[in-house]
């Protein structure tokens, strides 16, 4: 059935990252390759995100994540992963300044009620960086 007008509830970018997300943790054996870990949210609210980062010379070289949540929560975590590792990896300084709005902008926007989903992504990242720095 052809849908008239807008074809989806979210932007094409959200749809892409929701339907074919990248850099999620497939196998728990991979965890040992990462040196920072963060987890935020809770199941009661319906959103929970977990992130693993691999930092090398102050740059995030690789990342994995797991998310329990709605389409925008999944898409924003996947998009965050893309933003972190593109162009050879984001510096920790830049990553610390990354905001929920930055992720949302890259997704082409989110409905107002969904904004907290993308905000969780940058929080999980910050927790992971904190964890990495604490281990230094």
């Amino acid at each position, binding site marked *: 059935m052809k849908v008239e007008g807008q074809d989806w509830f979210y932007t094409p970018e959200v749809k892409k990252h929701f339907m074919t997300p990248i850099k*999620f943790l497939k196998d728990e054996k991979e965890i040992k390759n990462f040196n920072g870990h963060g987890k935020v949210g809770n*199941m009661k609210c319906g959103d929970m995100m977990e992130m693993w980062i691999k930092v090398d010379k102050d740059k995030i070289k690789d990342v994995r994540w797991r998310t329990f949540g709605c389409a925008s929560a999944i898409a924003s975590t996947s998009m965050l992963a893309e933003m972190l590792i593109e162009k050879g990896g984001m510096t920790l300084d830049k990553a610390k300044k990354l905001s929920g709005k930055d992720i949302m902008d890259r997704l082409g926007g989110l409905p107002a009620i969904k904004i907290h989903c993308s905000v969780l992504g940058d929080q999980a990242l910050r927790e992971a960086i904190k964890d990495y720095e604490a281990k230094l």
Partner: protein
Amino acid sequence: MKKEIYLDFASTTPVRKESLKEALPYFEEKFGNPSSFHSTGLIAKNAMKNARKTIAKILNCEDSEIIFTGSGTESINLAIKGIALKTMLENKAKGECGASGTFITQKTEHHAVLETMNWLKKFGFEIIELEVNEEGIVDLNELRKILGKQNQEGKKVLLVSIMYANNEIGTIQPITEIAQIVHEHKTLLHTDACQGAEYLSLDTKKLGIDMLTLNGSKVYAFKGSGLLYKKKGVTIEALIHGGGHEGGLRAGTENIPAIVALAKSLQLAEKEKVKESARLTKLRNYFISKVQKEIPRTVLNGSLKQRLPNNVNISFEGVEGESILLRLNENGIRVSTGSACTSQSLEPSHVILALGRPHELAHASIRFTLGKSTTKQQLDYTIKELKETIKFLRMISSAWNEKKYTLNHKDVKK
């Protein structure tokens, strides 16, 4: 072209061909206003009269006991606010303060009932919401107790409103018993029968109810149509004033095509009820048991026995409902969810929560509602896609651990 499998009939139904065909002439050549005092008007008036007669026969009531409305929600508002306004007028006549008395309902009602009652609180009416058990059924003893206590305290219970069958989990309430208890305590019972109309008896005498709500868009008739059955002798005030239509209780030129379609749909539903209910019950049970067999750690929400033939509501541990819904949608399968993510609030389904389920399971609930066009093939395809979807979403979920239960809930099926 991707095929569409619509499993959201509790949300709305298509208009059935027979009803559309009956209604079409009343848009063009028989377009008259039933209030007009000429032949064109008379044609419309007769059509409405016949439709009312047809419906009255199904409801086992008099023609004059049917009030056509613009929706199920409007019908519910008319029943509840109609009683509230009448009470306020009566109290005023006695020189008393306007709003006094109690309305009783239960936790899993549709928002049309809950929000209307919530609004009436502002005026000073007392509202009591009964708890339900884990299958979503009202506790009759609690109802008896509360009604008795109200009597003892000299408080007047103005109306009890309890739905016939629930829209989310399909739980059927013991309406006949409820009606008996309500009447023993000398008060009135309204029931929202929107979801049950297609499958359950609508005999108002046998059910023993005082007011009943139906909605066209759930019974293969038009959206924007509905009715309130109001037993003779029950008095309410109107909400919409004007030309005195519908016995002075709902002004506005009647929507003749919608009324004609509603009558036709209800008539056909009555004829097909037994057979279609049996067919869907079989499909429903097949679907539930196959999902439980193919997908580990699921929870069936609602009752297995006291359940509408077309309703399935299942929570999938470790995954969120909107994600399931949208991935199924991509494969042409239309369902709905009790997750907060598709509501305008950040709260998940009040119905699933009322069953005593944790928030996690309310977020993870999916409703599949079957209908006339549902086939076993469609359900098999749905299970196949559902299995893939759950597997994928669990793989990327931070709330899923294959070896460890993230939820310690007794209802989680292994």
